[in-house]
């Protein structure tokens, strides 16, 4: 059996505040295999971006990893000193953020930003780094890369800018890329292009991707497995086709039914009453229990752990007898 490239074990992220400790991510465990795309979905405040930030060591203080371990291959990275983490970030873990305009420096040419990143991580000469940068731009589908490399970010359109950001993330051939809402700021037709680029790149280079998004459509197109998050916890994780077609957790079932679809015209969408609890008011027991249509007594008092209910599938719901208490 191959070793996972990234392994997150019982990760808990807390924010101490004057009014007590807020738990943004609670007890999350998952693995990503080499070359795999793991989608992480959830609504705003579900803790999906925070999980990504914890992996790359960029949680804003006073937030902290309170519990758990993060392993990159056979190296533990959650407790590394900042300067050692910096050598991993960008080298072994690439990052793609939502808004390409804010992840590029508007005052520097693309070439400078790419070459700087490449030379920070790889022992290449200026000329070789430039060659590599052009090759990367070409790979992510920027036409006439050799000429456009000397343009400034504002000279690119939104979709092209996001391609540059993808190239930037791939500079040092990372083993894992954390992509946080990479297509959210883009129009549908451009989104489709970016999804294609990410899929191709991942397949060619064997890099694993953790794709954080609120858009189930993007997950369906891109991911191999999907993790559904709710109120900082893992509700369900499994192969993408089986989670989408046969969701186990009532939250993921509701979420799937709430999405309008092109192929069918239902009169009404599935209605999950209420909204996600705030971090300071996460209910006792299962976090979803006040909104759950199948709630029973145990849900209100005992917190279910994401436990294996079928080979390769875990869910945190008391409806399944295999589920244990957290």
């Amino acid at each position, binding site marked *: 059996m191959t070793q996972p490239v990234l392994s997150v074990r019982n990760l808990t992220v807390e924010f101490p505040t004057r009014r007590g400790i807020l738990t943004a991510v609670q007890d999350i465990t998952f693995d990503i295999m080499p070359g795999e795309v793991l989608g992480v979905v959830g*609504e*705003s405040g579900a803790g999906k971006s925070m999980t990504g930030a914890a992996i790359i060591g960029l949680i804003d203080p006073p937030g902290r990893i309170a519990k758990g371990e993060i392993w990159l291959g056979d190296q533990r990275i959650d407790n590394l000193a900042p300067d050692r983490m910096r050598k991993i970030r960008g080298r072994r873990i690439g990052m793609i953020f939502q808004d390409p305009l804010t992840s590029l420096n508007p005052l520097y040419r693309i070439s400078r930003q790419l070459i700087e990143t490449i030379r920070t991580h790889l022992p290449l000469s200026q000329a070789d780094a430039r060659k590599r940068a052009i090759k990367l731009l070409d790979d992510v589908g920027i036409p006439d890369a050799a000429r456009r490399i000397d343009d400034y970010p504002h000279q690119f*359109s*939104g*979709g*092209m800018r996001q391609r540059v950001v993808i190239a930037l993330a791939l500079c040092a051939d990372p083993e894992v890329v954390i992509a946080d809402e990479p297509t959210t700021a883009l*129009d*549908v*037709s*451009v*989104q*489709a*292009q970016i*999804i*294609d680029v990410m899929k191709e790149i991942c397949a060619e280079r064997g890099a694993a991707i953790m794709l954080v998004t*609120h*858009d*189930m*459509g*993007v997950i*369906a*197109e891109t991911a191999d497995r999907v993790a559904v998050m709710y109120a900082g916890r893992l509700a369900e994780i499994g192969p*993408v*086709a089986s989670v*989408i*077609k046969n969701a186990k957790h009532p939250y993921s079932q*509701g*979420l799937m*039914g*709430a*999405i*309008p*679809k*092109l*192929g069918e*015209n*239902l*009169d*009404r*969408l*599935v*209605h*999950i*009453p209420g*909204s*996600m609890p705030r971090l300071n008011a996460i209910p006792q027991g299962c976090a979803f229990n006040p909104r759950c249509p199948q709630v029973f007594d145990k849900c209100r008092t005992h917190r279910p752990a994401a436990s294996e209910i079928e080979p390769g599938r875990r869910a945190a719901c008391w409806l399944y007898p295999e589920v244990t208490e957290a």
Partner: protein
Amino acid sequence: MSDTLLDVRHLSRRFDVSAPWLNRKLEGLDKTYVNAVKDVSFTVAKGQTFALVGESGSGKSTIARLIVGLLEPTEGEIVFDGTSLARGLKGAEARRLRRRFQMIFQDPLASLNPRWRVTDIIAEPLRVFERSMNDRARHLRVGELLTLVGLSPEDGLKFPHQFSGGQRQRIAIARALAANPEFIVCDEPTSALDVSVQAQILNLMKDLQDEFGLTYVFISHNLQVVRHMATEIGVLYLGRLAEVGEAEALFATPQHPYTRMLLDAVPDIEMTGRRRKKVEGEIPSPIDPPPGCPFHPRCPFANARCRSEVPGLTRRGPQAAACHAVEEGRI
């Protein structure tokens, strides 16, 4: 059709985006304009939902603002229930007409005054349009409206920041309904919301439509949402209508190459294994649109005529497309 409520005729709007006067004089530049909306015509029948879809910069929000009168058209006319909303509509007649339509905006936090209590926010249209209404009756009506949108009358005492995004959009809907309008323009009403909350709001909007026979103009970039809501759809590209027609037909058999591309680009959430065609290019800048058909640089069917001549809408059965290739039967 006799039950047409809104008739938009050859609507155009351009914005002046010129450099400042001094720069123009010194650098010898001409004035520059953006044609945000160009020659758009459509009709909306009573009780129907007409959706405008398009990517950013296609002019959909400009059309919404033109309809409700937040912007004035450069050319063209908007006829509401037989009366033209031409420039210069003033006084009592304007008030009589205006109360019959309302608008819901994308970001409820920006469209609700943060320093007003919810009661005052919802009662404002009543104070403007129902001047004879006394405080007690108004208070009761606000309670009714809050119940209608799924909140409780006691929520009226709170401020907007005390609500979640979905609840705030409910408040905006309650305010829009306060003056008993027949017609509501919704500009991306759910794009700031999470999916489960979006589903709640879409269901609510459908229920209200059934209950009060409302007519919606629904603006969205999300094709799935439009598919769910609309009876009639207009697809915008660079300020022009590329295709307009019945929702069912338009989704089943899209005519215009842009509509086809757009539908193709929607992620396949049902996982039918549908093969997507590769999407090419991006929307060009509206300041300097391509000559001829605005879509021709991205269109696989473009020929010389497309590059020089702007196509008009030609009707074919339940839908009309502005495309030379469709008109000539090339596709």
